């Protein structure tokens, strides 16, 4: 016996063909869901006719349904009774196949043709035999089909589950995995042949998963979502999953838990990024606020009023100095309110002009404002600049006002100053012109004076010459007479002649002094600088005045520093001064001593040569005049001492030429000290 219902029915039909003369036959099996008759085997029937053929058993008046329910065989299609069957025209015997158990419906319906009374017993027998067999086979077939369907559905389910990228698992009450999709298997299942690292990762994941499930079980539905960190067994990277677990109760399998793991690693990263962005945003906002605060601080610290205006001409921001001008509060006077309005009107007019001036981004101008509190007039210089957005739209206008009061005041002062300066300049010019005129006069008179001076010097030189010629004769004759060229003379004659000689020499010395002074004044006595030693010079001086010393019968001492340096000066003039001073000392010292001292001051690099005597001395009053021309201390016609009184005048002039000075220290009756101080080297 075949296990297949079709084969079994086919064989039964073949048997009937052979033993019951059946030429055409059809075996229909009763199916339960839905209740219908379906062909399982046929004989002599074209296959297309049977395709999709079935009889609905709910249709009770269908001939085949009635035939199935009839306990006796039914003849169909012979006398117009019933419809045509798939077996074609001609009478067809339909006989129900016996059920597996008596309670059941018949197992199917057998249609055979032609009907022959001879074969009726075989047909009946076969229906009895085939029925239970076919019913069992059909039941088995149904089970198999159901299993197949289940298998397909299971496959489909697995396909669906596997197609889900989130790991999905079903675990039993002990946490053991019953079903897992492939993604879950990757994370939580490892074969022996996989690498050690991967196996360890899987072990770790299992532990983590179990822990999460346990926690979930404890916390229950209060927190249906849990974050669960896992390790990617393939590349070892950290993954974060959100675990969603739902208890699933199955009658047969008991309680289980369906878990869906959602990979939120990227989500976490995105969240972190969003948080970071948000933090940055907050930071930027804080920065912007700080910047704004700082800007406010800066703007408020500016002494000049600053205003920001929107394109509508409304003031959107101003610093404290601007508020003073453009804001009035309730407590302010009516006048102040009016001034603020006036200021605002002036300012608005200025700014609106800038909005109308299309191209220029800046505008500088003047506005006359008034201080609302002091009512002082404020000439303001206004500088406005447009703030233009990147789309070229004017978003705001910033205006800085600068009080020009001081500037204007300064300008006015400057103008005054300029005027005064011009006046002063004119005065200076006038004075300068006057000076030039005076200078010219002075220059002319100077030239005249120089000419006069030159004439005087020339005159003196000439006079001196004219004096000398007769004086030469007088001195010459006197000298010859005294030498006895003209023979001897009486002592009285000789004495008188000596008086003539003496006076003649005096006259000559006067003439020589006058000549010296005129030479100095005419600038005809140039300096001849040489280097020399003072001690040598002092020795020479002493030698030259030796006759005078001898006649004066005085002790003359010298006191010379050991360290006298080499001097560079006009030796002849220094010598002339010393001779003069020494001659005077001898002349005015009736008795006592005369001393010549020389010293060197290293610090000042100056030399001092002093002639000190124990003579008659000079009164303080006379000390003032002795250096003047033609002056002696005793100016009276009956004076005791000879001399033209020109010696010290000449000495003073010579000292000046040497860059030195000549001083006297004396008291009447206590002697005198004349000191020549001079530089060691010429100063220029």
């Amino acid at each position, binding site marked *: 016996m075949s296990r297949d219902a079709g084969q079994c029915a086919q064989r039964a039909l073949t048997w009937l063909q052979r033993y019951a003369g059946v030429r055409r036959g059809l075996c229909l099996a009763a199916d339960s869901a839905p209740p219908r008759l379906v062909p399982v085997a046929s004989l002599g029937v074209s296959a297309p006719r049977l395709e999709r053929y079935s009889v609905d058993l709910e249709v009770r008046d269908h001939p085949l349904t009635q035939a199935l329910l009839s306990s006796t065989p039914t003849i169909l299609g012979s006398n117009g009774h019933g419809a045509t069957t798939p077996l074609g025209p001609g009478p067809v015997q339909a006989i129900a196949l016996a059920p597996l158990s008596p309670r059941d419906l018949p197992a199917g319906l057998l249609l055979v043709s032609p009907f022959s009374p001879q074969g009726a017993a075989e047909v009946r027998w076969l229906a009895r035999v085939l029925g239970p067999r076919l019913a069992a086979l059909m039941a088995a077939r149904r089970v198999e089909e159901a299993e197949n369907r289940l298998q397909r559905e299971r496959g489909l389910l697995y396909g669906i589950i596997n197609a889900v990228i989130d790991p999905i698992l079903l675990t039993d009450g002990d946490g053991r995995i019953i079903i897992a999709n492939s993604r879950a298997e990757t994370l939580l299942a490892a074969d022996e042949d996989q690498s050690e690292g991967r196996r360890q990762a899987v072990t770790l994941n299992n532990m983590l998963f179990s822990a999460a499930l346990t926690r979930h079980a404890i916390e229950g539905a209060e927190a249906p979502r849990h974050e669960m960190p896992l390790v990617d067994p393939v590349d070892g990277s950290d993954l974060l999953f959100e675990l969603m677990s739902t208890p699933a109760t199955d009658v047969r399998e008991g309680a289980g838990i369906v878990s869906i793991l959602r990979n939120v690693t990227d989500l976490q990263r995105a969240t972190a990024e969003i948080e970071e962005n948000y933090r940055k945003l907050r930071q930027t906002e804080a920065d912007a606020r700080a910047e704004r605060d700082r800007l406010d601080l800066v703007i408020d610290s500016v002494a000049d009023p600053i205003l920001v205006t929107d394109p509508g001409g409304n003031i959107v921001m101003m610093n404290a100095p601007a508020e003073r001008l453009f804001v009035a509060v309730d407590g302010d006077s009516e006048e102040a309110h009016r001034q603020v309005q006036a200021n605002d009107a002036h300012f608005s007019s200025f700014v609106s002009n800038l909005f109308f001036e299309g191209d220029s981004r800046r505008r500088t101008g003047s506005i006359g404002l008034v201080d609302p509190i002091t009512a002082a007039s404020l000439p303001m210089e206004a500088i406005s600049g447009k703030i233009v957005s990147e789309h070229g739209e004017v978003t705001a206008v910033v205006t800085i006002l600068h009080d020009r009061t001081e500037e204007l005041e300064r300008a006015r002062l400057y103008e005054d100053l300029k005027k005064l300066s011009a006046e002063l300049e004119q005065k200076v010019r006038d004075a300068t012109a006057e000076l030039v005129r005076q200078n010219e006069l002075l220059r002319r008179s100077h030239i005249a004076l120089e000419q006069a001076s030159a004439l005087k010097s020339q005159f003196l*030189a000439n006079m*001196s*010459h*004219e004096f*000398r*010629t*007769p*004086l*030469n*004769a007088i*001195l*010459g*004759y006197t*000298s*010859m007479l005294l*030498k006895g*060229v003209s023979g001897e003379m009486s002592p009285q004659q000789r004495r008188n002649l000596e008086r003539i000689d003496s006076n003649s020499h005096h006259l*000559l010395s006067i003439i*020589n002094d006058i*000549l010296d002074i005129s*030479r100095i004044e005419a600038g*005809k*006595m140039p300096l001849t600088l040489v280097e020399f030693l003072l001690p040598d010079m002092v020795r020479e001086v002493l030698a030259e005045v030796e006759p005078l010393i001898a006649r004066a019968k005085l002790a003359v001492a010298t006191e010379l520093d050991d360290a006298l340096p080499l001097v560079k000066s006009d030796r002849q003039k220094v010598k002339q001064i010393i001779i003069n001073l020494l001659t005077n000392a001898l002349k005015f010292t009736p008795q006592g001593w005369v001393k010549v001292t020389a010293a060197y001051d290293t610090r000042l690099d100056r030399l001092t040569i002093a002639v000190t005597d124990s003579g008659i001395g000079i009164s303080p009053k006379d000390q003032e005049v002795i250096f003047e021309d033609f002056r002696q201390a005793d100016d009276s016609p009956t004076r005791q001492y000879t001399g033209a009184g020109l010696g010290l005048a000449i000495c003073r002039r010579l000292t000046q030429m040497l860059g030195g000075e000549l001083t006297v220290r004396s008291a009447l009756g206590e002697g005198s000290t004349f000191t020549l101080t001079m530089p060691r080297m010429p100063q220029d």
Partner: protein
Amino acid sequence: MTAGSLLVLLVDDYPDNRDIYVQFLTYSGLRVEEAENGHQALDKAFELHPDVIVMDLSLPGLDGWEATRRLKNDPRTRDIPVIALTGHALAGHSKGALDAGCDAFITKPCLPERLLDEIRAIHGTARARSGDPTT
């Protein structure tokens, strides 16, 4: 006056001065010839070829400087020493005199004995220079 004594030509326009020096120099054993202006001085110098010439610089007509210059430019008189004599004590005078060729310069007043000293000194120098042992 003895032959071989010094012959001095004294040139001065002031008679008294000439007189003093003539008296004294003669008294001192010198021979003296006089000239009272430049031209006379040149004539006598060429004619007498004196040993020393004493030349007052301020002379009427041809002055002492010019006369000295001419003497010094003439080979016949070039070697005769000239003592310049002047009443002008200014520096310019002595320099002008030396430029003109004077051998010495004396400022008046000049005592006769000083002139004698000067004449003897300058003649000695000139003789030593010319290497003439005869005079």
